[in-house]
């Protein structure tokens, strides 16, 4: 498609992570001149600064300095994956303030590629129940789509991402297009056998992860290769062994010649044209020069991460939309959700002393949801799944300072790997709640002039009951499997900590109660789409990233048809 004369670009995509990268790829491959704006700093795939640094080349052997945490990473460090090796992939908290009306841990990426660079790569399809849950139990807005609407789009994105997994034929966890699974180890097989025998209806399977266990031409032609089991993914991976926007979608977009990618671009507003009733473009601040720029396009895709997208949409005000573009209903910013997290168990598996492995498994195991599937069984609604695995740490790492012994015998004892440890943690589905919301502060702004976001999100009673069961059921399964020293945990954890935040611009059928229609399209502003987590009307209990991508690809396909037929 030739760039329309009246516009700078055919399409603008805000954000370059899971959703934005995929939107860019789809638009570029369909021939649209596409601008991607990302507030992060540039990142160069294949040139990750700490990727090959061993501990002894790190100033503090990989331990972060407490002063640095206090000064720059006081929020990020409470989340997942921040270390001395990865900290530069996370934002500086001091420079990027927000207001915690209620405690909320907002993890954000500092780089192009967004959280796709630092994600945990777990990739599961939603099931039929997930899309029906809101309607069934009355919490939240009914999704305007069902599993069957999305299934072909999972089929479409999975081969490109590259997901390793086993075929299980489970209703509660639909199979996808898989590469060979990462095999379970001897202890994982033993625990699996016990769970499936002692707890009928429960399954334990290899984690489904976006790692190339057997790269296909679609990966190799982008320069991606086999996962090397380094399990240091958050530093970046020059092999492209795990999927990130930077190793996958963005190079695919770039090779079409249709991509313009602008980093350091803090998008502040989607511009609204009252004459056409459409979005005309974007206003952004170059965070390096401080300059404000305006760019125009025929269609705008918001993929700036759930809260980032909401912040921009709420700041996009006009006479027609004083509370944010497309927000006549007032639902923008409502129903913010994040998975219930912070409960599980671990234990020691005796024996198997001559069993070991080569490589650090970047996946592990998954126990799909088994609660409240056919009927309501528990004192809470919906359910959760477990992730985890078995491994042997070095004894010095496993026991640290509590290990006694000195001299030759101490050294020699440390040559043997530690005992097999098996652990699980869980992610559970939160109930959508109208009162869980984010909004903008009336006057406080960041250094570039963006109004600060206020979070007012909390877990409720259903989540507390579910969390207790997450721990109790884990303890029961681990004990039954013969694990020793089984220790359950149920830690208080603020929302945001799961880094699976969703909602706020929910899809729905009714423009009075939802922000987007069944195509991730604004009910009111036809050329404005939201395809990141903000679009979600509920959160399932599985990790969301591949669903972001499937919905994004589906929405671009729809936008393409609308653009071609001149509707938008």
């Amino acid at each position, binding site marked *: 498609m030739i760039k329309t004369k009246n516009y700078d670009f055919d399409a603008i995509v805000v954000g370059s992570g899971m959703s934005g990268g995929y939107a860019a790829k789809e638009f570029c491959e369909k021939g649209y001149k596409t601008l991607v704006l990302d507030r992060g700093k540039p990142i160069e795939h294949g040139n990750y600064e700490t990727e*090959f640094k*061993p*501990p*002894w080349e790190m*100033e*503090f*052997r*990989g*331990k972060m*300095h*407490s*002063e640095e945490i206090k000064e720059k990473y006081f929020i990020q460090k409470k989340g997942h994956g921040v270390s001395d090796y990865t900290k530069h992939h996370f934002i500086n908290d001091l420079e990027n303030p927000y207001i915690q009306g209620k405690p909320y841990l907002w993890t954000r990426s500092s780089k192009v590629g967004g959280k796709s660079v630092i994600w945990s790569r777990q990739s599961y399809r939603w099931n039929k129940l997930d899309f029906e849950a809101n309607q069934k139990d009355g919490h939240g807005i009914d999704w305007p789509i069902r599993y069957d609407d999305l299934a072909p789009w999972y089929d479409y994105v999975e081969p490109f991402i590259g997901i390793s997994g086993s075929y299980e034929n489970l209703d509660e966890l639909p199979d996808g297009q898989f590469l060979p699974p*990462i*095999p379970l*180890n*001897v202890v994982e097989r033993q625990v699996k056998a016990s769970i499936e025998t002692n707890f009928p209806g429960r399954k334990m399977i290899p984690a489904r992860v976006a790692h190339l*266990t057997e790269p296909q031409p679609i990966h190799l032609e982008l320069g991606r290769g*086999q*996962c*090397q*089991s*380094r399990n240091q993914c958050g530093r970046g991976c020059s092999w492209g062994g795990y999927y990130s926007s930077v190793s996958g979608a963005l190079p695919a977009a770039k090779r079409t010649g249709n991509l313009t990618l602008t980093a350091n671009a803090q998008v502040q507003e989607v511009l609204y044209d009252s004459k056409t009733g459409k979005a005309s473009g974007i206003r952004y601040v170059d965070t390096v020069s401080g300059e404000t720029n305006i760019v125009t396009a025929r269609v705008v895709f918001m993929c700036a991460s759930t809260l980032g997208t909401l912040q921009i949409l709420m700041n996009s005000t006009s006479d027609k939309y004083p509370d944010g573009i497309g927000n006549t209903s007032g639902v923008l910013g409502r129903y913010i959700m994040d998975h219930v997290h912070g409960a599980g168990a671990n234990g020691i598996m005796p024996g198997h*002393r*001559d*069993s*070991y*492995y*080569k*490589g*650090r*498994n*970047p996946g592990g195991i998954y126990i799909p949801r088994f609660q409240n599937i056919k009927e309501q069984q528990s004192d809470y609604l919906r359910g959760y799944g477990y992730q985890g695995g078995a491994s*042997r740490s*070095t*004894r*010095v*790492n496993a026991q*640290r*300072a*509590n*290990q*006694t*012994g*000195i*001299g*030759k015998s*101490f*050294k*020699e004892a*440390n*040559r*043997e*790997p*530690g005992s097999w440890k098996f652990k699980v943690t869980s992610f559970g589905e939160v109930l959508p709640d109208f009162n869980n919301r984010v909004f903008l502060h009336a006057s406080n702004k960041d250094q570039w002039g963006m109004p600060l976001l206020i979070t007012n999100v909390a877990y409720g009673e259903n989540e507390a009951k579910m969390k207790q069961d997450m721990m109790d059921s884990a303890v029961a399964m681990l004990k039954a499997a013969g694990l020793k020293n089984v220790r359950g945990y149920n830690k208080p954890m603020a929302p945001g900590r799961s880094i699976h935040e969703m909602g706020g611009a929910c899809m729905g059928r009714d423009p009075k109660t939802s922000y987007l229609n069944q195509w991730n399209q604004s009910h009111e502003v036809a050329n404005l789409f939201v395809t990141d987590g903000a679009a979600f009307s509920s959160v399932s209990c599985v990790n969301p990233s591949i669903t972001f991508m499937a919905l994004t690809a589906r929405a671009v396909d729809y936008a393409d048809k609308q653009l071609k037929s001149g509707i938008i």
Partner: protein
Amino acid sequence: MGNLNRREFIAGLAAMLGTAAMTPGLANAVNIGLTFKPSGSNIIFSEQQMMLVARIADIIIPATDTPGAIDAGVHLYIDHIAANWMNKQESNRLLAGIDKIDADAKAKYDSGFLALDNKIQIAIVQALDDNLAQEPAYKMLKTYTVTGYYTSKIGMTVELNYDPIPGPYKEIPLSDVGKAWS
């Protein structure tokens, strides 16, 4: 390291430790240790404390068929961590703990720790280690000794098996590789 230059430090360490305490690779070890260049200049240990830490670390992880703590520069690592990574309270606790080990030796044997017979030094450290939970200063020193050693190049690549690019994850018998991955 105060006013000591490198040669004086090595000479001083050798003299203090005495030939009996010289582990096979000591001279080389000290050299390796001294090639470690901490980024900050405010190195916190006195010479006395540095040598004490080196000796205790070497008792905890001696050179055997593989190099030990001094070879891996563990004493320099701890000095660097104490000076540049710990907060004031932690480093003061560590320094006081090191001095106390010396003071306790003086009280009991009428001689500083470093001048004691090798066997007595080991017995002192063994006693502290047997009582690990009740010896917070020693426990701290041991923690950093162990961390320093097993995150050093020697600890990771010579003592244990270093495998930075393993390739596809697979099960193997431990006997195939003999010892733990670092």
